[in-house]
Structures are given as C-alpha cells and as structure tokens.
C-alpha cells in the first residue's frame, strides 16, 4: 500500500464510527421513552465489549490476507478456514501496515455488527446477557465469517465480493438479530390474543432521522476503507464509492416514503429511515464496482424489500423487531450481495455470481444456526429476557435506576400493564 492509500484508509476509518453512532441513535429513537437510556447504554457497552473481545480472540481468527491461517486439504483442493494469528494483536506488524489497518477495520466492523441485534431485542433484552452475547459474536461468529470473506479465506478465493460488509457486517448482524428475537419472543402487549400486532411507536423520530444522516457519513468511510483494504481498489474510485453509497440510500428512502404514502396516506418516517439504512446496506457489497445507475436500482429494490419485509415479519411471522433490524440488515444485506454479483463490473470481467450465492448460503446455513445455538446456550445460564415487572417498568428504571428524561412528563400509558 502506498502512503496515500494508507492515509485514505485511516481517514475513512476515522469517520466510520459515525455509522455506529447513527445506528445507536436509530435504535434508541425507535424504542419507547422508558427504554431510551438503556438503548444508548447497551450500544456503548456492546461497542466496548466487541472491541475487547475482538482484541483478545477475534483478530486471531479473522487474520488477514497473506498472514498465517489454518488450511484444510480435501483431495487436491485446500480450504483456508480460519486465521491463525496470535491473540492480543501480538506480532501484528507496526501501525500503518495493511495488517494493522485491517485490525482497526475489524474492530469498527465488529462494533457495528454488534449493534444490529440490539435493535431486534430492544426493550426486553438484559444488559448482562447482551454483553456476553456480544463477546461471543465478536470473538467467534464475526471473525470466522470475516476471515472467509475478507481475510483471504475460502470464500474470498472463490471470488466473493463484499467490500463494504453487506454480508460480513450487516447480514451477519441481522441474522443474529433474528436468532435473538426467536429466543426472546415478542414484547409484552405487542400481540393481542388473536395474534394482531399493536402499534408501539418509537419515542423520537428526530433521533432516528439524525441517526440516518450520521450513518450515511459513516457508511462512506466504511465502504471506502473496505474497498481499499480488501479489494485493492485504487484511490480514483473513492468518489464513485461515495456517490454510489448516497445514491443507493437516497433511492431506497424515496421508495419507502412513496410506498408508505400510497399505502397509508402519509409517508412513514420510521419506515423511510429503515429504507435509507437498507439502501446503505444493500449498496455496500459492490459499491466500488457498480455504475451509479446500478446503485440507484439496488437502492430502489432495497427500499421496497425493506418496507414489505418489515410488514411480513410483524404481521405474518409474529417477529417483534422494534428497530426493523432484520429487514434492514439481513434482508437488504442478502439482496446487496446478490445484486453485486448481478450488476457489478469487476476487473477482468470476472463472474462472481456463484461466489455471492455461496456467501448467502453460508450466512443462512452457518451464521444463523451458530448464532441461534450460541444464544440458546447462553440463555440457559444467563437468562436473556428481563422479568415481566422490569419490562412493564421500563429498562431504564429497572436496569439502570434512572430514566432518560427525568425532567419530562412521562406518558402514563407507558406504565400501564399490557
């Protein structure tokens, strides 16, 4: 890597944490006011735990292209299946080297992935359980899949392309969120006795929409850094990455706004926000290799997919996902991986569609069962769900001892048993 590339990656990684800040605000805003402080507190704890777990164990499994790895030989084929770096960043080449930058990218990526399930399990997932679950995600699930796709593993050798982390960060986080919701169940009062969902609107649309804007800035950084580090993209393409990122998000948000306007008579702010983030997620996979028109097309489809997926999960499958994380991150992420294979223009005209399908199959067949198994086992020792009384009282008072807005008048219906 040239010095200019190193500087570009460093700058990109400096703004990338804005994506995490944006997601945390979105998660907090889409929850009720009695859980707002808990939402921000769990986000901060998840980032802290994910960073430490990645440092202790995660990076040794993630590895990096060209670094030591565990290889399985089947006949004449070899499968690079796990990184073999020493733990605690020991013997990591000096700061500024590609390996060190990959470690920084790994920390920021795993922190972002750890925030995604928090949106799904919001308002009923206990802080202690969140911390242990995040440690397992950052120490095992994420680094193993990230090694396959980003760290020169068997999936990368197959041609899999995911420069911005549509699969590695978002689909992985979204599928973990699905496993978490399956284990937690719905919030009390969310469904009536005949299975009809009740509306539980978020308490701050302003938080949600501001979070979307922050996320847009952070996403550009993450996409740019990933493209240089994991796909060797030249600096001239950075502007294209930025353009594609914003175009994808904008197109998706517009579709979500139009769809909700047509269906409900008014554009829905929270679904429009979900559409925006869904567009960011979907375009991440191939952002460095897509013409702008393709980014718009990917965003348009992502906006529609997210809107209908939120409704399908809530109404038909009775999956209570307060922040829409499963639709936004898992569904849009999987769409983004496939769309990159269909619409991307890769160096040498290579066809990566098969590798993208295999990547999706790996997310569904490895990441989802593994996340379910890990969290299911954890639930036996550290119960995930808060008590009935705690849920009624609100996670702020029950777990933190203080509300987010002590000076404000609280809506009494927030405390009514459902």
């Amino acid at each position: 890597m040239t010095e200019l590339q190193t500087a570009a990656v460093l700058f990109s990684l400096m703004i990338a944490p804005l994506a995490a800040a944006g997601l945390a605000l979105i998660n907090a805003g889409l929850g009720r006011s009695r859980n707002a402080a808990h939402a921000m507190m769990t986000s901060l704890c998840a980032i802290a735990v994910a960073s430490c777990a990645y440092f202790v164990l995660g990076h040794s499994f993630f590895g990096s292209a060209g670094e030591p790895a565990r290889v399985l030989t089947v006949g004449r084929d070899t499968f690079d299946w796990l990184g073999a770096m020493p733990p605690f960043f020991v013997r990591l080449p000096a700061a500024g080297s590609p390996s060190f930058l990959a470690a920084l990218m790994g920390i920021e990526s795993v922190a972002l992935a750890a925030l995604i399930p928090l949106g799904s399990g919001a308002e009923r997932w206990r802080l202690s359980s969140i911390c242990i679950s995040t440690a397992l995600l950052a120490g095992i699930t994420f680094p193993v899949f990230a090694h396959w796709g980003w760290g020169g593993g068997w999936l990368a050798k197959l041609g899999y392309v995911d420069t911005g982390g549509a699969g590695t960060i978002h689909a992985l986080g979204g599928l973990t969120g699905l496993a978490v919701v399956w284990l937690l169940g719905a919030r009390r009062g969310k469904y009536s006795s005949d299975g009809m969902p009740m509306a539980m609107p978020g308490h701050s649309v302003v938080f949600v929409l501001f979070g979307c804007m922050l996320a847009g800035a952070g996403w550009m950084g993450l996409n740019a850094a990933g493209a240089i580090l994991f796909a060797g993209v030249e600096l001239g393409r950075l502007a294209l990455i930025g353009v594609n990122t914003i175009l994808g998000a904008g197109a998706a948000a517009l579709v979500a706004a139009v769809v909700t306007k047509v269906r409900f008579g008014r554009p829905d702010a929270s679904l429009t926000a979900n559409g925006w983030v869904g567009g960011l997620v979907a375009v991440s996979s191939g952002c460095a290799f897509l013409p702008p028109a393709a980014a718009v097309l990917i965003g348009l489809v992502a906006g529609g997919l997210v809107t209908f997926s939120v409704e399908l999960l809530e109404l038909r499958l009775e999956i209570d996902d307060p922040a829409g994380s499963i639709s936004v991150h898992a569904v849009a992420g999987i769409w983004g991986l496939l769309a990159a294979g269909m619409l991307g223009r890769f160096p040498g005209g290579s066809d990566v569609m098969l590798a993208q399908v295999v990547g999706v199959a790996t997310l569904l067949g490895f990441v989802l069962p593994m996340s379910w198994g890990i969290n299911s086992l954890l639930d036996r020792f550290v119960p995930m769900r808060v008590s009935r009384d705690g849920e009624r009282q609100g996670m702020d008072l029950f777990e933190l001892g203080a509300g987010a807005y002590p000076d404000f008048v609280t809506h009494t219906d927030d405390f009514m048993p459902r």
Partner: protein
Amino acid sequence: MKTAGLLLLVSGWLLVLAAIAMLNGGVARNAFVTAGLAVEVLGLILTGRAHLPVRSDRG
C-alpha cells in the same frame, strides 16, 4: 420442528460446500448450489414456523 429446521439450514450449506469441493464448474455445480440454497430456504421457513408463539402463551 425447531431442531429439524436448523438441521435443514446446516444441511443445505453442507450441500453447497460439497458441490464446490467435488464438482468442477458447469451446470451440475450450479444446480447443486441452487439445491442447497433451496434446502436452506425450507429450513428457514420451518424454523420460522416453529418459533411462532403458542396462542395461550400470549398477553
């Protein structure tokens, strides 16, 4: 049903892995990968249905 669904998810993935390891390109490889993905979709549907709450548990 929950376990069966999760096993189907893993089985579909193993089918995909086997296709990549044992078949060298062509229609057969693509067909097996698609079949593996289809098995996973079945597993996803089965797992999703298994997690639907029992009516008397709600409220």
